[in-house]
């Protein structure tokens, strides 16, 4: 088909013009490709120099600055939940956050208004009083030590999960980074609190410390798994980190004292999430746009995990700007994603078949991991929904994603 050929040509050219070594083609095509890349280079070279006079630039700048004083004067100063990079926020924002929290801590310590502290108790990440809430927690931590401190930290970590659940349920498009940051805080607090309790156990031999950790990890694991379907893609890495942290903390506690605490060992979809994160990271570092089949599916499969986020990108590809306020174009459906994607890229029909066997394999694995969870079909919000049913929205697209990438060219 001509359209398929020219898409391939377009990809090859795009790669070559961005400096990636083109694939070995026949000599005539390679030469033609070089010619075209030369033209592109010529354009680049010719337009290297600034086209604007320095005087003009300077004069315009002063005009703009004069006008800016008025234009920008009315803008609000309160920190809103802003859309910034997935994960760790610009340095300036982190600094602002830290300053706010430090100020809030001082405020709380000095015995600031009881009303404000009380009002902050229900606040959510991104709201104005949230730093006061965190500062209050911090003060309470400061007043404790040893295992009491550890327990308090685990409580705080659980509160982080409450916040994540609420944010995810709201489904606001800008919430990705708040959720990501809160998950990171959860991971940190879980690790720190867990460490304190483990140390306390080492020093004092008190089994209740370990039991406390196991109770926390079991509860957190359940909650994380419940959250799996509603975590936006912008927070997928942090979610995976949190899941791994809980799994790790639990196994450390089990090793320290196998008999403390009655729960079975915990594994929060560990393998699946690692697989997803690995594949996405790998695609990003290879600089490739994975075969359109896989990337099309990735976009669709990850879009199923979002509630109403307007992001269309997988988390790790840092150079894709988000689309502004576009409604999501992939409404979640129950059909397998990617089947209507067109059999264009790989040109084979073996893709889907392999994918479904991979999916089955993943489902078997997860059933084993979750202690042989029931095979109930996924029902809406019921307490008895089998974990594997909950996992289905993950295992199917992940299976296809992995299949698409692994079976790709």
């Amino acid at each position, binding site marked *: 088909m001509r359209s398929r050929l020219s898409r391939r040509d377009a990809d090859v050219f795009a790669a070559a013009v961005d400096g990636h070594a083109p694939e070995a083609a026949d000599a005539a095509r390679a030469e033609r490709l070089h010619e075209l890349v030369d033209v592109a280079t010529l*354009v680049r070279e010719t337009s290297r120099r600034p086209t604007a006079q320095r005087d003009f630039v300077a004069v315009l700048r002063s005009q703009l600055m004069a006008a800016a004083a008025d234009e920008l004067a009315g803008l609000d100063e309160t920190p809103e939940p802003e859309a910034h*990079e997935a994960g760790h926020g610009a340095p300036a924002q982190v600094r602002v956050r830290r300053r706010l929290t430090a100020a809030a801590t001082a405020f709380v310590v000095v015995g600031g208004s009881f009303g404000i502290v009380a009002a902050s108790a229900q606040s959510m990440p991104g709201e104005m009083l949230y730093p006061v809430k965190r500062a209050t927690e911090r003060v309470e931590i400061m007043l404790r030590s040893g295992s009491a401190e550890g327990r308090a930290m685990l409580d705080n970590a659980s509160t982080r999960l409450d916040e994540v659940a609420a944010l995810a349920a709201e489904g606001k498009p800008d919430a990705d980074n708040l959720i990501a940051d809160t998950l990171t805080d959860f991971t940190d607090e879980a690790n720190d609190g867990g460490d304190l309790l483990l140390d306390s156990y080492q020093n004092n031999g008190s089994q209740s410390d370990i039991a406390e950790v196991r109770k926390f990890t079991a509860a957190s694991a359940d909650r994380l798994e419940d959250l799996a379907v509603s975590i936006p893609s912008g927070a997928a890495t942090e979610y995976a980190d949190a899941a791994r942290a809980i799994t790790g903390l639990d196994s450390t506690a089990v090793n320290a004292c196998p008999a403390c605490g009655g729960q079975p060992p915990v594994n929060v979809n560990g393998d699946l999430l690692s697989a997803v994160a690995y594949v996405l990271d790998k695609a990003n570092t290879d600089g490739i746009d994975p075969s359109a089949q896989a990337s099309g599916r990735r976009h669709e499969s990850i879009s199923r995990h979002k509630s109403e986020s307007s992001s269309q990108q997988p988390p790790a590809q840092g150079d894709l700007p988000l689309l502004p306020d576009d409604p999501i174009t992939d409404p979640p459906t129950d059909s397998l994603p990617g089947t209507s994607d067109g059999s264009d890229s790989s040109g084979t029909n073996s893709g889907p078949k392999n994918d479904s066997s991979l999916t089955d394999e993943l489902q078997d694995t997860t059933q084993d991991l979750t202690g042989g969870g029931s095979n109930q079909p996924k029902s809406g919000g019921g307490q008895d929904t089998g974990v594997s049913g909950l996992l289905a929205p993950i295992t199917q697209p992940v299976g296809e994603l992995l299949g698409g990438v692994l079976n790709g060219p």
Partner: protein
Amino acid sequence: MRLSSRPSVYGPEDLAGLRHAVLTVLMSSAGQGPVGPTLAPDSGDVEPPDDAEQHRIVALVDLARKGDVEAFGQLYDHYVDSIHRYLYFRLSSVSLADDLTSETFFRALRGIGSFRWQGKAFGAWLTTIARNLVTDHYKSSRSRLEIVADELPERPADTKGPEEGAMAALTSEVLVEALHRLAPEQQDCLVMRFCQGLTIAETARSLGRSEGAVKQLQLRAIRNLAKHLPEDLR
């Protein structure tokens, strides 16, 4: 990621070889000797994507959004050349480019309070504003059928030599003329990708097209441009 005003990643040394070949052709066609080091591009020829710079941009956008005047000034400094370059190549007139650059940034100033894209997409946003201005300009009947007089870009103060300046100016003129034979969207794509150095993603954002469409567009545009370039430049 590459929002600097210079062309973006050149990649590994193989592209340097191509460039050398191209420039040799240019120079020999004007009767000059082999390319000397003076024609080599300035520092930062091969620019890896600069994460620190991107963080800085995002921080500036956030500050400017909240009313920080100096932050807006720094964003202007970062993007003014890129926007002017886009406008110059699309309009082939320095004075027009000046006017529309000014208009672009004033509109940005008025609109930044409600800027909702991610900070790192700020450059694409500015380019979109500029592009709309170009479209409006061409819609006005007066300018539809004429290509505005061939004004050459003024050489900046650090020009390295008269021959090289003349050479570069000549090429620029030829290029702009060839460029204007293309359909507007192809022109946009070429200027964004190869004059401003925007990434495929940023270009797609600015044009409101998919990335796949942009890749096809750039290939088609380069092919067409090649057709319109004189033999010895191809």
